[in-house]
């Protein structure tokens, strides 16, 4: 049975009554089946009031679960969100961006999800709602492995929240694939940097497609923090990048290449951001 409720309350009630496939942009659901339609119990959240929205809440930015990549491209965000806009332009195609949602991208939990490294670099947390109430889970804990999340019975990811602290600084995103468009990445890097007095005062770097779940480069961030801008890029070493990653060999590339590429992309992403901050 296909449900398309108008209110969150109704949606959560449906979800509480039994397992359902949650549908929004359907850009992952349909490719997973050869059937002519979605079958079983489907909860379509695209008409739930308030879910397709970008808003400010106590200084944080809240992106509702039905917000599409196209919405993100059109939104008025601070420069620290440039990474997300750059990723939005590279997700699938214009067609996918028009339907696919950012929160759906997270919930699908692919190691190559374009949105995850961006949101990690923005210190995002996920708003998880159920008939029982709401909880907020940091994104790094929300995705637990390849295509698995903490979402339990009756729970719905209703938004991502980016804290006020992540709204400062500049950011960038680089995605590497074997072709220009419509490509699943071999590696990708998202970074956000705050510069004060020509030194890095805050930094977040994350890498996707090089581990089961995209990772923050904690070891590298520790080295970069406080670093003078002009030497920052030179601090990026393969060892520091590798410290938080666990890449695999697959049809797109081998593991060693992924580490090399992640290092190069990290240098370039930081280089471009820092060039901008001068």
């Amino acid at each position, binding site marked *: 049975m*296909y449900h*398309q409720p108008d209110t969150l309350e109704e949606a959560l009630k449906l979800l509480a009554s039994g397992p359902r496939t949650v*549908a929004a*942009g*359907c*850009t992952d659901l*349909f*490719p997973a089946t*050869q*059937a*002519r*339609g*979605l*079958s079983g119990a*489907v909860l*379509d959240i*695209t008409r739930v009031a308030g879910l397709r929205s970008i808003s400010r809440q106590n200084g944080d930015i809240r992106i509702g679960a039905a917000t599409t990549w*196209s919405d993100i491209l059109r939104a008025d965000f601070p420069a620290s969100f440039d990474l997300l806009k750059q990723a939005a332009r590279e997700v*699938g*195609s*214009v*067609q*996918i961006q*028009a*339907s696919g949602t950012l929160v759906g991208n997270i919930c699908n939990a692919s190691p190559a999800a374009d949105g995850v490294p961006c949101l990690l670099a923005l210190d995002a947390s996920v708003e998880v709602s159920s008939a029982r109430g709401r909880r907020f889970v940091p994104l790094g804990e929300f995705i637990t492995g390849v295509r698995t999340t903490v979402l339990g019975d009756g729970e719905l990811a209703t938004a991502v929240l980016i804290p006020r602290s992540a709204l400062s600084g500049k950011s960038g995103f680089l995605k*590497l694939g*074997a*072709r*220009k*468009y*419509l*490509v*699943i990445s*071999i590696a990708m890097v998202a970074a956000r940097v705050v510069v004060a007095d020509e030194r890095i005062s805050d930094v977040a770097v994350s890498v996707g497609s090089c581990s089961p779940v995209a990772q923050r480069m904690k070891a590298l961030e520790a080295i970069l923090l406080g670093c003078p801008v002009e030497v920052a890029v030179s601090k990026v070493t393969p060892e520091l990048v590798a410290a938080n990653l666990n890449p695999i060999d697959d*049809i*797109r*590339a*081998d593991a*060693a*290449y992924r580490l*090399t*590429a992640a290092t*190069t*992309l990290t240098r370039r992403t930081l280089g471009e951001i820092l060039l901008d901050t001068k």
Partner: protein
Amino acid sequence: MNRPEPAINFSINGDEIAVPSDRGRRLSEVLRETLGLRGTKVGCDAGDCGACTVLIDGAPVCACLTPMAQVAGRDVVTVEGLSKSGLDRLQQSFLRHGAAQCGICTPGMLMAATALLNENPDPTRAEVEEALSGVLCRCTGYTKIIDAVVDMDRTALPQPAAGASVGARIERLDGVKKVSGAEVYGADLMPDNALLVRAIRSPHHRATFELKDVAEWAKQHGIEVFTAVDIPGDNRFGTIPAFVDQPSLAQHHVRMRGEAVALVAGEPSVIEALDLSAFPIVWTPEPPELDQIQARTSANLLHEARLGNELIAGRVQRGDPGTALANSAYAATLTINTSYVEHAYIEPEAGAAWMEGETLVIQACTQAPAMDRDETARVLGLPRERVRIIPSATGGGFGSKLDLSLQPLIGLVTLKTGRPSRMIYTRAESMMSTTKRHPARMTSTIGCDTEGRITGMVFDGDFNTGAYASWGPTVAIRVPVHASGPYFTLHYHAEARAIHTNGPVSGAFRGFGVPQAAIVQEMLYDELATVVGIDRLKFRHLNALRDGQATVCGQELAGVGIAECLTALENPWRDALERAATANGKGSVLRHGVGIASCWYGCGNTGLPNPSTIRVGIAADGRLKLHQGATDIGQGSNTVVTQFCADALGLPVDAFDLIGPDTALTPDCGKTSASRQTYVTGKAALLAGQSLRKQILQMTNMGETAAFAIEGARLRVSQGTQSRTIELESLAPDQNGYVLSAQETYDPPTSPLDENGQGTPYAVYGYGAQIAEVTVDTELGTVKVTRVTAAHDLGRVVNPMLAEGQVEGGVAQGLGMALMEEYIPGRTENLHDYLIPTTGDMPEIRSIFIECADPEGPMGAKGLGEHVLIPTAPAILNAIRHATGARIDRLPALPHRVLKAIRDAN
């Protein structure tokens, strides 16, 4: 209990409608199946190809990813909505620019472009490239599509006068229905009351299987099941009579993943809901043989009589290459490995079957209607007169749709049930069960003297031909004939073996193995030019085959245009080298390089007959009809063949009505393969036109230069002040209903090759050379091809717009083969893991056409379709080498392989 579905209200192309539908159903299904709006095409059902792009509230979305529930209350526009009052400006621009070839992606392209133009009426090329990046095209290389969006002001191309169409840039004669969305492809056929058919396929590369209680399972579900035991004829098909070996439905064991073992047929709603994984079958997998080198020594023989799993070996031997190489000043050796390459046409196989009296009629996408008829008749135990094949429009073929796919399957269901049937392959099914380009492992040594003249060459290749023969013999024979490239090579030995494995069947793919062989030969030419110290273009020019020189088969050719192609590239080559040197002078992680490679390719079957027959007639009412049996899979034979006939007859192309292809209506024009239609069918059309003209001149006693005009039911023949009129209604019609007609057959004059491969394999060859310019990121190993300059000798350019389209599309496929395409059975059975170039991957392409008339070709014309792909990959690989020193020995040159090769080189 099934409740009636509530109606969903929305607007479609401006009309408010209410459609009862399951709310989770794909919009693409409802548009096509319920509303009959079949202009929206389905290529992948996964958002990978964009063919189903429609506008919802103005935004381009994939209809295959949109559940009906999300359409309620919204405004949907499909391709049909663009031309409510004739073709719109964009559609006309597509027509005038030649932006549609096969046309299957055209509706998606039009909708994506419309969305852009609604927001940005005057976009840049880059903006168009990005806006169209979600729609894949396998034919055009995107160039003309982007041209059509950027330059919508091109006016209608002038119609050439009678007798002057050859050489003119005319629009495709079948173009309007491609840009309007009205063209009927295999999946667009929906006979009333048709059964839906699906196949049960092997999930294993190699296995035995046991069918359980299939009859009971069928009864439970209210469907019919057919297996190998139901096949009334000889359950084998294949393209080459001596090697016919592929079952339509396997019995007891399967030799490849995707092999069909049973069919289910029933009411569409029942078949759709069926869980095929519950089919009562027990598989016993066995260890497969997947590598052609290991298969040569394996005890696992795919076909008992084929020892060493060798299907066939082809060989060409001339002179004494061993001694010649031993005495050469320089010699170089290289081993290259290539991958399976998937044709990746955007139209998965589809079609329908029905009975017309005692005749089984099959309408499906194909490149070879007469072969389909003969093979289907054999499998189904019917005399061939009882099978009629009507090719649907074909949404790309490139060689794979030469083989049977669903024809015997839907034929069986219709024959057994008496009901119409319909089958549409899923993308995965298409990719896993149809043919591929042969993976090859090739080793070659070429020598030259101190001045750079080629002294000798040896070539040895193992080509993975997969589980069944298909066109493996053709590849094994063609490769040794062509592996020298278009160069004078006095001492030569080449052998190519087609080796069976449990991989997918390797068959025909644009070039039949020659593109793989050209890679090793052209890379070796760069090696030799470099050691001798000669410019790489000059080195090729020095060795280019010239008129009167013998080929490696001992054939002396005339009208050889390779030297002229290379000459035409001299200035672009110098400019490209300068551009690269200047860019490299700046010092960067980006390195720029230039590469060059040539091609030659014999048109038509190798040393075997392959006639085409064309009929042209004028009916009593004055209609002029051309029975054109060559399947136009996008390359343009409907237009080109008509151009020849029109000029020979002396009437304009728009005077012709085209009939066919249809095995009941058109004489056999052979298959659309081997770059033969322009040459072979074109020549038959030329002869038929000439013959009809001669008859008319004799009837009217007028001279050679007389002009014809059809005026209603009269044919007026005039010359100077003289004019005579034939009252067509006064003439008696022949058995085909024509009062004036001609039918002519043309078969290329060739001879079989002897045991050393000596003879006249082809009567006509085409030639070409391409320059590729690349930028390599030396830290990431990524390669961007920035420009390709392609010089091709066409003998006579019949239609420059179509010819450019062939070049641009061939370059795209060559680029894909060089840089990204690698089909891995079981891993890349979709269009997001199997990558083909998008708009953003294409270089700027410049075509230069050379006309060295061929004495045998119609008006001097030669083939072009496959030639255009051959030089691209080696030119790119040579450019990577030039840029970085990296020598790629395994294709595709994915970033990690390029980076490793760069590191190995330094």
